[in-house]
């Protein structure tokens, strides 16, 4: 059973150092890859069925194949911004096994002909960035990076760039602008980064986990790797699970496993005496599912069929002691705070939604506000420049739709409480 790839040896002391990593077979896949023709390598990546782990689930090999041929300067950029609430898998990968990522980056760069690469890591991950910096230095010292990668004559530079706190820099074009030293506003697409990305050069951008899987794909071969998981969702996936569960953390699973087995089996379910009320299957941007959906298989297609998305693979569990209004308000606040402000529906829509939810919470709303709020979400979805707006509107819509009764009851109760307080003050 090969359902442990990315996390293999993950807690081995010293794995973050190049010696231990090499001792565990590290950088062998790179040597294999360097002997392969880049075009063939891209075919292997395509054949592996690996889909992006950053949230959008775009087939990795296909994206690599979009990078144009030619002599122009090309780049590989690692998206290590990991800011989607509930997501913390890349953190553990970078902290404990940085060389696995570096090896993946080199393989990807070789496949697409890039000679410069960057890891854009969120500024808050200082400890992980320090570890990466050290690992990159080691890789340079050992000749895996630099002018002659592992003696192959191929050139590659790698630099770790630290962000400074902005969720939108996880969106790939916002990330590129940030990496170029600007405000992290998403760009208009097309052109896509594959054609005009960093410094307007062709750029392959992938998530940390996506690239960390590359050495394993090269090692196993496309066929073996693609046999893991289910149709359209091959390979293993790191699941970050948090919220009201007994054993929060990252788990590597084979895609297709039942959600119940993850939430209850791996994470131990909600605390004693509590039930799952609802859960986000793919980070805070995914529409919520309820206890009724627990038997859905955890893979791209099944979660989509259930009306949500696998996203970054982050499950947030909310138990029946929690108020949906509070979670919804937290969520709206987050997106309003993180909206970059470039486009109107997201900037104003997230801000408006947060204000309406504030009134729901403090009892100055009416049930009609719920209708307005629902319609505001519909007016955001599909009309924004990037999908941050949708990332709030979809879960908020799902919460209002699935828990309307609770919202209404909350409005009633909060109103009554506010009235009582007012009378109390007056009297």
């Amino acid at each position, binding site marked *: 059973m090969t359902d442990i790839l990315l996390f293999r040896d993950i807690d081995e002391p010293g794995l973050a150092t190049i010696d231990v990593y090499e001792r565990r077979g590290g950088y062998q896949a790179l040597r294999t890859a360097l002997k392969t023709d880049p075009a063939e390598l891209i075919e292997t990546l395509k054949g592996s069925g690996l889909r992006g782990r950053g949230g959008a689930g775009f087939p990795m090999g296909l994206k690599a194949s979009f990078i144009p041929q030619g002599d122009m300067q090309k780049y590989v950029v690692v998206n290590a911004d990991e800011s*989607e609430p*509930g997501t913390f898998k890349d953190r553990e990968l970078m902290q404990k096994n940085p060389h696995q990522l570096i090896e993946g980056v080199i393989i990807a760069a070789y496949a697409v002909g890039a000679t410069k690469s960057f890891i854009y890591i969120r500024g808050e991950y200082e*400890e992980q960035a320090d570890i990466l910096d050290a690992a990159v230095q080691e890789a340079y010292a050992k000749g895996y990076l630099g002018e002659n990668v592992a003696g192959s004559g191929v050139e590659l530079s790698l630099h770790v760039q630290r962000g400074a*706190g*902005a969720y939108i820099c996880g969106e790939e074009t916002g990330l590129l602008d940030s990496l*170029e*030293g600007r405000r992290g506003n998403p760009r208009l697409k097309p052109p896509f980064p594959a054609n005009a990305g960093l410094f307007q050069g062709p750029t392959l951008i992938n998530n940390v986990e996506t690239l960390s899987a590359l050495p394993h794909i090269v090692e196993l071969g496309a066929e073996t790797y693609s046999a893991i998981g289910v149709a359209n969702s091959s390979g293993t996936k790191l699941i970050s699970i948090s*919220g009201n569960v007994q054993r929060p953390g*990252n788990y590597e699973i084979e895609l297709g496993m039942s959600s119940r087995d993850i939430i209850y089996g791996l*994470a131990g379910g909600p605390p004693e005496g509590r039930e799952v009320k609802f859960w986000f299957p793919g980070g805070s941007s995914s529409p919520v599912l309820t206890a009724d959906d627990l038997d859905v298989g955890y893979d791209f297609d099944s979660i989509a069929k259930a009306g949500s998305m696998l996203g970054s693979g982050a499950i947030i569990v909310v138990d029946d002691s929690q108020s949906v209004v509070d979670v919804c308000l937290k969520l709206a606040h987050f997106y309003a705070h993180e909206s970059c402000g470039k486009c109107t529906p997201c900037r104003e829509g997230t801000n408006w939604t947060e204000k309406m939810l504030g009134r729901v919470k403090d009892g100055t709303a009416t049930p009609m506000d719920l209708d307005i709020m629902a319609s505001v979400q519909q007016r955001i979805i599909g009309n924004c420049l990037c999908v941050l707006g949708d990332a709030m509107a979809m879960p908020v819509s799902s919460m209002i739709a699935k828990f309307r009764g609770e919202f209404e009851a909350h409005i009633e109760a909060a109103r009554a409480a506010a009235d009582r307080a007012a009378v109390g003050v007056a009297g």
Partner: protein
Amino acid sequence: MSDVQRFEHGSRVPGWDDAADLTKDPAVIPDPQTTPVPAELRTQIEAEMARYPAGRERAATIPALWAVQRHYGWCTPEGIVQAACVLEMTPAELIAVATFYDMFETRPVGRNTVYVCTNISCSLCGADELLAALRDEIGEDPDVNLRGFECLGACDIAPMASVNGAYIGPISLDEVPELARQIREGAEPLPAKRLVLRPSADPKVSASTPEDA
């Protein structure tokens, strides 16, 4: 200046009500001749600029702002002008970037940075109470910059905090006085709760990790 609105957790300070001071000169690219830059700041920024292709040196803006913040404790106008001078940009371009990101401070703050995550997973586990308790315990300490923060990517140790970059959690309310003391004294915060020491939650991992390790 009238009272400006702040986000609840105080992380951002809008400057909407500020008019231009008409006695000042326009803020153009600072002339190196009239803008002395501390040597160590210049060295750091120039080293960052060297990492990018020629003509793309402005990509060093964020590292340059980090250098300014390290040097002065926050992104002071003076520091921004100096960075702008080295980068050959206008200070406006730098302040535009600095104010976009949550971690850059554009007003004076305490040197000890404490972020308490108050996002969904952490608040499900009591983060709002943690932040309130810590705020009470620390009080008005000018050396501490205590801020509520969005998800810090460590929901597995909810509720959690980042103290000068070190992640700790889960933090119970009982630990708040001790943590506050450690922050004040510059001691290592809750050493036993350091994220970097935490083993993986995945049971398969311990099974797969060889015994000889």
